Structures are given as C-alpha cells and as structure tokens.
C-alpha cells in the first residue's frame, strides 16, 4: 500500500481529518509522526535556521522523523490562504521550499498550493493533481474529497464542545476523553492552534489550567459569526485568518460576564502575533489579561508560577468582589 506521511505540526491541528480521509479514500495509508517530544524538538532546532519561530522548528523535527520512516510521499501543503483576502503567515507560503532546501533525504513531496485569497478555482485543480498520484479516476478523487469535507465538518463539531483541537482529533479517531468538569474559573485562552494545542510547544498550558480547576475557553468554541462581527469593529480588517479570529474572540470575551480572564500565548518571533497581541492588549479593557511568550528555552516551572499567580489573582478578585480593581496590574 502507498504510504503518505503527514507531519504532526502546524496545520495538522486544523485539517488532519480532512487530509487523512482524503488520502485513505484514495487507497493510501496515512502515517503521522509521533507527538512532539524532546527528540523532535532538538532535531528541529538543529535543522531549521535560528531565527524562525518555534512551531516551524518543531515542524522540521516532525519532517525529519518521517524521513527516516519508510514512506512514499510526504504531505507538506503550501497554505497561502484559506479564505478571501486573508493570509496565514509568509512562512506557511514558503514551507515546502524551506523544507526542500534543508533536507537531502526527502521522499516525494506533495506540495499542493492552497490559495483562496482571490477565488477557489485553483483549489479544485490542485486537488485533482494530488489525487492523480493515486488514481486516474477523477470521479473517485472528487468522491474522496467530498468524504473528506464531511469528516472535517464532523471534527469541527467535536471541537466546538470545549475540547482542544488535539483532543478533538483523538475523539474523531474514536478514542474517549473525559474532561475534568470541576472548575470555578473560566479563562479565555488564545494563540495559534499549532502552538497552544501542541503539548510540547505550549507546555500543555490548557491541561495545566484544568488541573488548577479552570475551564479553558478556546476560540474554537465560539461561533464564526460572532468572531467576525467583533473583529469587524476594528477600523481596518485584520488580514491574517488566525489573527482575526484571535482579535474577534478576545473582544467578544472581554464583554462576557462569565469569563474571568484572558491569556494570550504567543511564540517568540511570531510576526502576526507581535501586531495582533498589541491590538488585543489595547482593546481588552474589562478583563485581566496576560501575555505569555514561549520558545524552546521556556522553562515549565516559570510557566506554572505565572499561571498560578494569574489564577490566584482572578479568584481573589472574584471572592472579594474586587472587580473595581484595575485589570492592568
């Protein structure tokens, strides 16, 4: 059977069910790299240039692991844009080229270009092109894609129920997960999905909050319309898809009475975050707000201390009804 490798990084968290279903429907076997571990991280750091951001370094590590496995293809999509007039980040536009320039032992790279910034006409051609690696039957390719979209929708539904994308993928695959429902705080947690849901990059921040008896309220739980409505209150449209989701989500949570505080997790050197983080910090007026910057040097103990201090502060604020105290330190 033809084996297709999918690195467990970057847009894996958003689109894995779609990709997996598509390739499996075409008769391929899908192989993923293991969950991010120290070895993957250190190899990624070795191969990637120093200045790139942590999630991209980790992605390099995942690609490296797959290179050593016996696969026929490796799937590294070039994700330019997933909606009209919006982009992700320049690094996503160059990632197949970056990977090609850095590895000598790569399997054949499937580098489909996804660019919906103007229209979605090209996408269909690209999908057919990929499908033709497996079959010449265009109808079968189309069917595989339709099935993939159905599965992706099912996955999106799961992620709305308060599970992280990482957990939602597991649930979608049929595993069972039980969440700790005992909590007295509700904290909005923002950040690029490939950072906050990767347990090594964010150092498992969401589970740490759950252990501290907080409910992590993530942007995936919000309705897209609400996010867009709030984001459109800015004088200029934010042209990064994920960035706009963060701004809209944060502004919405700022108004909600049941949310106690907001945490923004950013990776050191993230371009969009340096701007989006600033916009959010300036616009969130009513809730305590904490910006956490992580990279490969971040220590877990430091993170725990900051989370604990933040939760303590929120609890004190809540119990003493000290909401008249400034939210900004």
């Amino acid at each position, binding site marked *: 059977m033809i084996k297709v490798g999918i690195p467990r990084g970057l847009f894996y968290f958003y689109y894995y069910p779609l990709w997996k279903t598509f390739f499996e429907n075409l008769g391929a076997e899908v192989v993923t790299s293991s969950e991010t571990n120290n070895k993957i991280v250190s190899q990624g750091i070795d191969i990637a*240039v120093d*200045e790139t951001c942590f999630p991209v370094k980790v992605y390099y590590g995942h690609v490296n692991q797959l290179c050593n496995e016996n696969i026929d293809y490796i799937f590294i999509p070039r994700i330019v844009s997933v909606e009209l007039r919006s*982009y*992700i*980040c320049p690094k996503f536009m160059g990632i197949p080229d970056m990977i090609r*320039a850095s590895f000598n032992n790569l399997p054949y790279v499937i580098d489909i270009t996804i660019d919906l910034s103007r229209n979605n006409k090209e996408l269909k051609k690209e999908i057919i092109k990929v499908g033709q690696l497996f079959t010449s039957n265009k109808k079968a390719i189309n069917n595989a894609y339709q099935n993939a979209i159905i599965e992706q929708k099912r996955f999106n539904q799961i992620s709305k129920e308060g599970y992280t994308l990482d957990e939602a993928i597991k649930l979608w695959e049929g595993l069972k997960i039980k969440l700790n429902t005992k909590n007295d705080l509700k904290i909005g947690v923002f950040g690029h999905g490939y950072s906050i849901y990767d347990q090594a990059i964010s150092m498992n921040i969401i589970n740490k909050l759950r252990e501290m008896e907080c409910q992590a309220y993530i942007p995936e739980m919000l309705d897209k319309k609400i996010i867009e409505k709030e984001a459109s209150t800015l004088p200029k449209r934010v042209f990064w898809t994920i960035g706009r989701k963060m701004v809209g989500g944060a502004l919405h949570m700022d108004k909600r009475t049941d949310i106690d505080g907001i945490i923004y997790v950013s990776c050191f050197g993230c371009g969009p975050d340096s*701007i989006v983080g600033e916009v959010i910090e300036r616009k969130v007026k009513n809730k305590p707000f904490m910006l956490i910057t992580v990279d490969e040097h971040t220590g877990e103990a430091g993170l725990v201390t900051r989370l604990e201090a933040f939760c303590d502060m929120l609890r004190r604020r809540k119990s003493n009804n000290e909401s008249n105290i400034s939210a900004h330190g």
Partner: protein
Amino acid sequence: MKVTFPHMGNSYIAIKALLKGLKLEVVVPPPISNKTYELGVKNSPEFACLPLKLNMGNFIEALDQGADTIVMAGGWGPCRFGYYAQVERDILRDLGYDFDIYILESPDSKLTELILQLKDLGQNVSLAEALKALRFAWIKLKAVEQMEKKLEYYLPRSLDKDKTEKIYEKSLKDIDDANNKREINQILKSSIKQIESIECTNDKILKVGLIGEIYTILEPASNVNIVKTLGRLGVEITRSTYLTDWINDHILGGYIKKSNHKNIIKCAKPYVNYWVGGHGRETIGYAVHFAKQKYDGLIQIGPLTCMPEIVAQSILGKVGEEKEIPHMTIYFDEQSGSAGINTRLEAFVDMIQRNDSFVLKEDAKSEILSWS
C-alpha cells in the same frame, strides 16, 4: 496643516518635493538618531520589527516639532507592514497626541487610484498640479538614486574616501534644495564630475550583492550604514532594491522602463516557487541572479523576525551551496551594535578575498563556502 511621514533612506527628498507640490506644509522628521531609536523602542510593541519602531520614533519627533498630520502607506498582507499604520495610530493617540492620519492603502493597486488619493490629500490642487508634483518628485528620486549608485561604485575605488562621501552628502543636500529640473541636472553634472575626478585604486574590487528586506536595505540608520562600511573595506555592493525600480515594478507596472522583475522571479525557481510575501522571493531571485553574474559574495539583511526574509534565509544556504557563492545573513534590531556587525563584515570580506585569490581544492572550498 503640517504634514509628516516616516523616513526610509533618502526617499524623504522626493516625498518632501511631492507634498510641497501638493501645497502642503511639510515637517520632515529629524534624521534617525539614538533618540529616535529610544523613543521608538519605548513606545512600540516589544516584538514588532525594527521599521515599525523607527516609524514611531520619526512620528513622535515630528509631532513634537509641530506636525499635525501623518501620511503613511498601508497594504493587505501577509507582511506585517500592512497593519503598521493602524497600530501606530492607536499608540500615538494613547500617548495623547492630536493628529490626523492619511493612509495610502494598497500600494500595489492602480496608479490612477494613488494619484486621486494624493490629489485628495493636497490643499485645493488640480489634477494637473498633482501630476506635476509627482513628476518633479520622480525626477528628484532618480537624481538621488544616481548619486547613490555613484557612491556605491566610487567609494571602494577612491583613494580619498572622506572626500567621496562629502561630495555625495553635499549633492543630496543640493538636490533637496533644488527648485526645478534644470538645477537638478546641473547639480548632478558637477557632483559626478567631482566624484569621478578623485584618484582611484588599481586593485581588483570585490563585488557583493546586498539582498533582503526593502526598508533595511534603503535606510542606512537601520543597517549601521552597511553600504559605506563595505565601501570603506573596498567592496562594491549592488543592492537588490532600488526605489525607482520598485516603484516602476509595483506601482507603474513596468510602464517607465523595462522591468527586470519577471526575470528575477524566474531566477528564484526552483528554490522558491510561490510568492511568500514581502521580498522573500526576490531575495532568492537576486541571490541566483548575482551568482550568475559571478559576484564574490552575498549579504542578506533584514529586520529581526522578518517573516519573508526567514523563508529566504532558510533557502539561501542551498542556493549558496549549489551556485557556489559565499553568503551571510544579518538581522538588525535595536540591539545591533556597529562594532559587532563591523567585525562580522570584515571577517566576511577577508573570507571572500581569500576565496578569490586562491585556487582552492574542492574539499577546502566547501569548508569555506559553508560560512554564514
């Protein structure tokens, strides 16, 4: 209405002429200094790239000098630049400044739109007057660039480098003060004559291609004046970005002169096969282009965390290896000290000089080429 705008190299000379032609009172921000850096860094998001911080410094200094209107460009991503003006406006308002801001959106769109936006900005100017202002600004821009190119050529060769620089600086000032085309032509003629009359060395001159992000390449204050530093080390540089070319390619659609842009995009293949925002693809395209022309080395510069340049940097190693050209990447931020950068530049120049003067054995060559 007193108008100001951010610095980017010598472009202020042309922008000033343009705004004056639109009958506006202009406040040119003071040249970028340590104070500009200090003000910019203090009041900008910590992880924003250097150009935003320097913009902030420029604006604060200009507003303190009485400016009340800011003219700034916009854009639609994916590079951060497109959102600069939004963040800068919010920060300045929060600092308590009272001002208007004009954001010229979509520099990639049609020229007619841009002209109309400019006409709107002017104080009761007719379309003819707006066009005249644009034309005069363009003439100044071309003149300035001609002098920049002369400096790039003569500084490494000249035996009296101080004098060469002095003539160059004076010519810029004169162009800035000039009121019409005739004056500009006279200034050019006499300055070029002076610069060419300085005695030159007979040594072989090393040629280095300077590639990377547009602001860092154009603004000497953001790159510890790399052109002059290299010139004084006896290296002639050719930039990947000249402002007139950029305007010709991106705003005028190759209308004024034959554009080399398509060729550069072609050169970038198969290393970069898609647009990656900013100048990432052009950086690699020019790297290949310079390698083909047998340049001695490449220096890539950009602001720290610049996304398109990181894409290019990740690929530059492969280009250097395959095209056998030494290369180095330098990122700049507010922490960049000139002494450290100069040491790196000197080491790089020493290395390419050695590379040039010895016929190297294959194995030794690969060792040296891997420098970065």
